[in-house]
Structure formats: C-alpha cells, structure tokens
C-alpha cells in the first residue's frame, strides 16, 4: 500500500462523529481526571490531546491489565470448563503515536509464536490504528535508534502528518484503505507530501542522537556480558517497582491465576506481570534463579535488546522513553544503552 490522500481538520472531527454514529468505538489520547493524558475512549475529536505523549501506551487495548479466560465449575472430582464468549467490537484509535503503533506490530511476533493468541488477534483485527506523526520528543525519546522515527508507519493503518489546513494521509494497510473507502466524503485533495517535510525533519531532529543507532552492537555486548558488574551497578537505584513495565508499550508478560468465586466455581484470568519483581521467577521450592534486583534489571535490557532480537529478529523496544519518564529513581534507558555502546566500542562507560 502506498496511496495517499488528505483530510481537513473539520472532516477529521466529522469522521470521529461518523464512526461514533455507526457504533464504532473511538479511543485517543485525552485528558484524565488527574490532569494526565491517557489513551482512552473519546466521544469527539475535540477530546484528543496531541501535544503530549500519553502516560499509558496502546497495549491495554489489546492485552487488558486483567482478562477472564474461562470459568470453571467443580462437581465432585470433575471440573467443567465454561467458555467465555469473546467478541471484539470494531474500534478505531485516533491519534496514536508512531512508537505506540509500532509496539503493537512488534508484539505480533510473540503473540503468534508457539500459539496464536486469540484475544490479542481478535482485538488486533477489530481495531484500526490512525496514527498522527509525532511532533517531536524530549530527551528520553530514541525511536530513531531502534529503526523507527517520528513519522514511522509501522503498526499503523493510516499515518496522518499535519499539512496546510489538515493532514496529509498515508494509507499504510488494507484496513486503513477500508476506513478511507468507507467515508469517502471525509477525504480528498489537499496539501501534498512536500508540505509535510519540515514538520517531519523538525520532529526527527528532536529525537535523533539521544542513543546511537547501533542495535547490533548493543545486542552483542548484552549477549556476551551476562556476568558483567555493570548490571549490579545500574540496579542499585532500582526499587523493583515495575513502573517501567506497566508504562512500556512492549512489555507483555502476564500471570495466569485461578480465582475461586464460590466453593465450586471460579474464573481463570490473565493479568499483567513484570520481570522486575521477585515473585516473577520464584519457584515453588523457594529457590529464585533471579535472587536480587541485579538479575531483574539485566533481564529487562536482555529481553528487549538481545533475547527478542535473537528469537524474532526484532527489537522489543520502540524508543518511547516512558520507562525513563516514569521511573521514581531516575533509571534511564538512554543512559544504559549509551554506556553499553561506549563499553562495546572501547570508549569507556564507567559511571
């Protein structure tokens, strides 16, 4: 797909209204009661806030923090499984950021690895992602170091870039084309790609250079330095709170729990989990292969920049910088990656 079109701001408002009138759920970055900006359900395009990176990512739209898998009933020594019928109503996300849209695509690998995760792909197929090119990031952004960029199209169905009195539209996928074709009056002629170039360049300049674009160097160093004292050094300040994993668009680990609701009935659920806690790896015997926070901090970097690349040839990070912004102790992934590149290329790196 490489067609392009244009939508005026007024028509974008109309499009959201059209979608809502057609019974399609619409979500986007909007203000919360505590003053933050989160991706959440919206009632009109006027709710959308585009100048701040949302506090949460898109992952909860596809992997909810808690999700019932099935119900069970015990009868004597038998257990009956009661399926929970899952339906995935159509939904459009308006105002996704390129780093968040890409994250969903990155996660498709693992969700379709040893089995196809039905709820994940059920929601993926029901959801159209309309991404807005990023206006530029802060010092913790580094999307260009992981093969993305403020106007990357990965994971998006449509990419909108501000131009003239509206948005230049790149139609990225068939699903994106279906959305455009369904509302033909909302799209039409307008400013061309040339009108978007300065916006794109300004955004790219604001995030470039924060981390060297050397993912192979990082991967190799991490693979070869499992026992390096670097890990103990960076983990000192870590509280193991897992705030980084909750905020991360690509951290996807989950726990499976059975919750009794009566003496004979209960629900099996899956809930967000994180490798930053001790219980994540605690064995029933009492042994814990990751005895302390050193191993847990290493695991987070290792999984994102070495294990996932080795398995799927893809980096489990989109450079959004949320982990650095959310960390209560000032742990900063850009600093960690810079130190790794410096050590790997023989330019020092000690704190």
């Amino acid at each position, binding site marked *: 797909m490489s067609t392009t079109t244009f939508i005026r701001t007024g028509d974008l408002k109309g499009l959201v209204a059209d979608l809502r009138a057609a019974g399609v759920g619409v979500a986007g970055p909007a203000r919360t009661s505590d003053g933050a900006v989160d991706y959440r359900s919206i009632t009109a395009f006027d709710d959308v806030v585009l100048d701040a990176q949302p506090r949460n990512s898109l992952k909860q739209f596809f992997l909810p923090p*808690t999700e019932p898998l099935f119900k069970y009933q015990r009868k004597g020594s038998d257990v009956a499984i009661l399926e929970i019928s899952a339906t995935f109503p159509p939904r459009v996300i308006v105002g996704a950021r390129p780093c968040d849209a890409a994250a969903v695509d990155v996660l498709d690998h693992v969700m379709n690895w040893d089995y196809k995760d039905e709820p994940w792909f059920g929601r993926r197929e029901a959801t159209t992602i309309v991404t807005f090119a990023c206006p530029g990031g802060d010092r913790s952004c580094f999307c260009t170091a992981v093969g993305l960029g403020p106007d990357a199209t990965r994971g998006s169905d449509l990419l909108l870039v501000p131009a003239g009195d509206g948005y230049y539209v790149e139609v990225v996928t068939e699903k994106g084309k279906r959305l455009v074709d369904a509302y033909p009056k909302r799209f039409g002629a307008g400013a061309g790609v040339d009108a978007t170039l300065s916006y794109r360049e300004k955004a790219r300049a604001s995030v470039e250079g924060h981390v060297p674009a050397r993912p192979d160097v990082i991967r190799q160093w991490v693979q070869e330095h499992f026992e390096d004292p670097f890990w*103990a050094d960076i*983990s000192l300040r870590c509280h193991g709170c897992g705030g980084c994993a909750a905020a991360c668009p690509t951290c996807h680990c989950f726990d499976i729990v059975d919750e009794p609701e009566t003496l004979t009935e209960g629900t099996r659920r899956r809930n967000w989990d*994180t490798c930053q806690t001790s219980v994540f790896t605690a064995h029933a015997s009492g042994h814990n292969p990751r005895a*302390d926070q050193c191993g847990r901090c290493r695991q987070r970097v290792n999984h994102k920049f070495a294990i996932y690349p080795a398995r799927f040839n893809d980096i489990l990070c989109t450079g959004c910088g949320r982990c650095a912004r959310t960390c*209560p102790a000032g742990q900063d992934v*850009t600093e960690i990656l810079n130190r790794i590149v410096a050590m790997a290329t023989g330019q020092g790196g000690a704190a």
Partner: protein
Amino acid sequence: MTELRELARRLLSEGTVNAVLGWEEGPRGARPAFVTTPDGADRLIFDHRCVHNLASYLSPRRPHLKRLGKVAMVLKPCDARAVAGLIRETQVPRENVVLIGVRCGGVVTDPDSDATLSEATVADRCRGCPDREGKLADHTVGTAGPGFPGPSHRAQKIEELAAKPADQRWAFWQAELEKCVRCHACRQVCPMCFCDRCLADKTQPRWIESSPHARGNMAWHVARAMHLAGRCVDCGECERVCPQGIPLGLITRKIASVVAERYDFRPSDDPAVPAPVGTYRMDDPQEFIL
C-alpha cells in the same frame, strides 16, 4: 553543597563507610546516587528537587544493596521519620548507618521539574512541615529556607471527602481504585513496606486476589492502608510512583489522622517512641471490640 561533598569524601576516604547514598544530577533531573569512591563525592547534590525518600534503600528487602556494606545516607528531615521507623521496628541497627542530615526548606513534587521552589510548586507534604533539620542525624550540613505554611491541600481534600455521605465516598474510591493495574509499585518504593514476603504475593492461600478488578484492588488498598496504620511517614513516594495517578496519600493520611486522634501517635524522628502497633495501654480505645 561543598560541605556535603567534603563530608562524604572524608567518610569514604577514612573508610568510615563504603558508600554514600545521596542525590546526583541524572539525565532527567535529580535522582538517587550511590557514591563508592572519595572522588565520586563531587557528584552529590542537594536542592529542592531531591524529593526521593532514600530510606527505602535501607530496607532489608533490597539484598542487592547489601554488597555495599556500611553506608552513609543523606537525610532530609522528613526522611528521618522513615529511618526512625526502620530502627523502631528493628529493621536497621542504628549503628549500621551514618546519617548526614541536610537542612531543608521544602521540595517540589517532581525531581525533573525545572521550577523554582515556591508556594505554587512546593510538594504538598512540605506545607506546614515544622522540621528544618532531622534530629536523628550524625552530621548536619547546609542551609535551609524558611519552609512553607500549612494547611496542606490534601488535608483539606480529606476533610471534604470525610464530610460526604458514605455512598459518595464509596463512589469516589471505586472510581479511583478502578484505575489500579496492581503493579504494586506503591509497595516497592515504600520505606515501611519491608516484609520479606508480602501478604499480596502469598498464593497458598491467596489472601488478596492479584487481578486488577474491583474486588482485588479494594482488598489490596485496604490491606495496604491497614498495614501502614501508625507506620506511614507521609513521604509521598507511593503517590509519586503510581503509574495510574491514584491519590494514595489521601488513604494513608486519613489513617494517620485516625491513629493520631485515637492513640496519640504521630510518626517522628525519635525511634525510642514506641509504635502503636507494637504497644498496648490499658486506656487504648477498644469499644470496637465486641
């Protein structure tokens, strides 16, 4: 700053301590620092962005810090309450830590803030704080501004909530706790949450459901509030760390006011004052016992 750095350098070079826990300039503002060499003392800073409660790092639940050996810790007056709590509850032997008190006239809320300290930017817990220096400290350095008058906005919010009928309070907390994703970050940063194995992590039996649904979230936050009764030092770290923006301080502060009213106990920097959870007096209120 020079006074702080010189003292840290001396403690490290004389071998009094192996590490100094303080603050440094990080990529995103002030952050905790772990200085292990005399030269590293020059990294230390203290200003109104040093909001973190470093006492959390003294908690025995952080085995990866044990390798540092004996440490000195830079101490705000309010953090002294947490250290006193850890000593009071026999988690940290007093002689195991050297406390470098810094005089403090208040901090902001966000360590990444470039705002200057003012009536508009000061952290709510600093409003009305009478302490300019921590009495628990072995050394005290620096100078402090005059502090900020109370009352805190949060205290007013608690009063507003308390004045509402029960169903409205219930609706407020249902809406707030619905946001919780049960990451337990509030527990992890809390200096007073030091259990080796948390009630919420126990699975045989599962006392508190780990799922972030209304039932599990309510059970967790009620349990957390009760376990911090008479122990919370109001450092605000739980609220600062919450990735969902839940006003957790409203819960802990409300409980603290109940404990103050009924048991005449306010967390102080004196570890010798017995904790209400660990003591029994014949005149303790007990009309709730059936």
